[in-house]
């Protein structure tokens, strides 16, 4: 019996001793040849954390620079401060919320209008109304400004025309004279990310080629060189990203010509095509039948189709005759798509060559998102793709990303940095960031 007792003691002892958990040895954190102590992020709405058609606190907290900075902490990253909206005004500019689905499965969205940070609306002569937001006066690491183009970075009055930029400046519109480039480089930094340039193509594309113009590629190249030279002149290292193909976003691939036509034909089988006002060349537009290569924007109110329109030829249904084509602003037609794509290709070649010349890391967002568009992306058991809502990557505006989408982008930036500078910034847990919120 004594032996048995001893044996039981031994076993209990063994259990106590070894019931410690297994532990996998991970590589020691290293910043490589880079220094992340003051990291700044330069860019537009994507950088600011814009999502669901607005800039709001929850989106800011999940911006890709914020995610990157959090991951950088273990390799010498410093405090990362964002120009956050206050909790009381957490809905910022307002944004879209998914409220349900119609009986046919179409999503229904509603704008969030409470707890906004809107300070006022200022009419600027010769420009239009500028929405102003509550001022932010603290330290800034995330310089993402929704709407900004590369074209705007040296334009001194820009701080009067963009409310998201104006809120970061001390002065009130229309008294500002600090160009964006000077603003972001005023305080020293050791590392930067730059993802400017999307709006130089996107603003044109999302307005159906009607409400804006593409930035001239030569101007783009010159400004990009100036930007990168300025960002690197103090010895900072950094990462830049290419501009995604605007046609790879759900904004242009959800309300399709085929889907509208099919729905029209359900009610009226004799209809054979939709008419659009399409670019012929230069600035000449002419009506023609739409094809699948003409991209219709997500915000097109499809209820307009077939509505009576009075014309010199009598009352005709909207979108269904050459005399009543779908308005230009709703369609990025095939020729406009080509113009946009050519511009993006030219912009990206400037971005890549300048970055390579300066030895910067490059995240090729163009290739990455194009690849997701064609093949989808599976990660951590989540199947993602570029579809609207169901794809999980893009937020309700069809252009900007969900927190999960931003986490994936942050990881791609981190991979590019790690491979360029020999650092090992740990990747973020994509599964910990959410997607679209369903009611």
């Amino acid at each position, binding site marked *: *019996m004594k*032996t*048995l007792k001893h*044996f*039981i003691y031994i*076993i209990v002892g*063994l*259990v106590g001793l*070894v019931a410690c*958990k*297994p*532990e*996998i040895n*991970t*590589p020691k*954190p290293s910043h490589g040849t880079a220094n992340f102590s003051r990291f700044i992020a330069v860019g537009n709405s994507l950088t600011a954390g814009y999502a669901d058609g607005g800039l709001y606190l929850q989106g800011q907290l999940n911006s890709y620079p914020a995610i990157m900075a959090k991951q950088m902490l*273990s390799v010498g990253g410093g405090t990362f401060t964002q120009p956050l909206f206050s909790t009381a005004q957490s809905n910022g500019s307002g944004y879209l919320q*998914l409220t349900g*689905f*119609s009986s*046919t*499965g*179409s*999503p*229904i969205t509603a704008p969030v209008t409470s707890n906004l940070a809107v300070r006022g609306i200022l009419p600027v002569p010769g420009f239009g109304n500028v929405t102003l937001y509550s001022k932010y006066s603290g330290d800034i690491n995330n310089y993402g400004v929704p709407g900004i183009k590369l074209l705007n970075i040296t334009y001194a009055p820009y701080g009067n025309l963009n409310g998201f930029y104006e809120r970061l400046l001390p002065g009130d519109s229309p008294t500002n004279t600090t160009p964006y480039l000077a603003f972001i480089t005023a305080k020293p930094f050791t590392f930067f990310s730059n993802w400017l340039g999307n709006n130089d193509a996107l603003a044109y594309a999302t307005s159906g080629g009607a409400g804006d113009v593409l930035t001239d590629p030569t101007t783009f190249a010159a400004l990009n060189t100036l930007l990168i030279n300025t960002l690197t002149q103090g010895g900072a290292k950094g990462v830049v990203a290419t501009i995604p193909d605007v046609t790879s976003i759900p904004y242009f691939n*959800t*309300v*399709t010509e085929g*889907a*509208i036509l099919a*729905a029209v034909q359900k009610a009226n089988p004799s209809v054979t095509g939709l008419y659009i006002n399409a670019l012929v060349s230069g600035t000449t537009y002419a009506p023609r039948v739409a094809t699948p290569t003409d991209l219709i924007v997500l915000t097109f*109110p*499809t*209820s307009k189709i077939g509505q009576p329109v009075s014309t010199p030829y009598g009352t005709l249904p909207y979108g269904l005759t050459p005399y009543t084509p779908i308005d230009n602003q709703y369609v990025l037609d095939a020729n406009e798509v080509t113009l946009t794509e050519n511009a993006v290709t030219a912009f990206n070649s400037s971005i890549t060559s300048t970055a390579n010349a300066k030895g910067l890391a490059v995240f090729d967002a163009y290739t990455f998102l194009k690849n997701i568009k064609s093949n989808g992306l*599976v*990660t*951590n*058991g*989540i*199947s993602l*793709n570029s*579809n*609207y*809502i*169901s794809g*999980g990557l893009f937020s309700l505006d069809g252009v900007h990303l969900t927190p*999960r989408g931003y986490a994936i982008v942050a990881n791609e930036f981190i*991979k590019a940095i790690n491979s360029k500078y020999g650092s*090992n910034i*740990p*990747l973020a*847990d994509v*599964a*910990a960031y*959410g*997607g*679209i*919120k*369903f*009611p």
Partner: protein
Amino acid sequence: MKKILLLVLALIPVLTFAQGFQVNLEGQKQIGMGHTGTGLVQDGASVFFNPGAVVLLPENYIQAGISPLLFKSDFNPSGTNAQYQSLNKVATPFNFYAVWGPKSSWWKLGLGVYTPFGGLTDWGKSWQGKYVLESLDLKAIYFQPTLSIKINKVLSIGGGFVYNRGSVDLTQAIPLGNSSGQDGQAELKGTGKGYGWNAGLYIKPSSKISIGLTHRSKVSTTINNSDAIFTVPASVQGGFPQPNTFTATIPLPATNSLGIGFYPTDRWTVALDVNLINWNVYKVLAFDYKTNTSSLQDTYSQRNYKNAVSLRAGAQYKANTKTALRFGGGYASTAVRDGYVTPEAPDANRVYVTAGLGYKLAKGLDVDVSFEYEHLMSRTQTNIQSQLSGTFETNVYIPGISLAYHW
């Protein structure tokens, strides 16, 4: 006509049973000796280890044992310093045997109830692989009536029929967040059954050596009409109709064993076992949901397991008439190919050591205790299906105790 959208929620949960959930804990005496026993006559556990040896038991037996099992897994996602540990949950594999026959007769009857397959893994609801698996509780309980016959002085044979009662309870997060950002949940829960058989041959050519050869058949276990519970936000619940059921078949593989016992002195018994486990029957895992929608399709996922081998050795030393000391160990190769490792039981090649003690409490009453420590080698993998990428490492701690009454 509002907005026309091609909206299909293509978020099909793919639920998986992975891994060789083989649990080698079928008798405390045998566990102590590295889970050898195919070529030995130890006690009622021969019903499992070798039905051919049952008839050679000198007495009738009734015995029961339990082996509380703590499975501690660690996961380090690729490119991170994060470590996720499975929660402390104790599984309870058990064994029960009864053997009866006329004294010194040419036949004996046996009954075994044991748990040769199972798994209990709980990673919690907030780890990186939650969309692959949160928790799994899988049990297979085999009921095996057995007949053993002595052919002559050297050779005896035996065989049994196996009825398996299996149960599964699996949970997984679904990437459909509600308005507060909480994930949807899938739970598959139910029971099933399967049939098989077990046969063995026992040869004792001399007093110094004995040899056993057994085959335990495949038991294809079908989980039928079991609950498929999906909790998702109300606006997308239509894609996951409730109530719903599923059917799935899991082939629990056949095992071929060869065991040899050596008796160098009166006090020493040395045993060697070799097992070949036919895991290659596990090619695919298919889930058939009763009600399908565009969001909830039947799934069909590749498993492509390969056959596995285990080598075991053990020894017993009779310290005195009342006490037996045992020790052993072994090595088992993994059935899971690269690219197919999943968090249910992140399989890898494994080594283990065991120790045991037998003590005679009274006439006809034995108590046996055992302890096993198993280490699954660290394995860095990217799963082909889920793209969950990282390193798994696992330790298993299994104390155990049994009581045997024989007369």
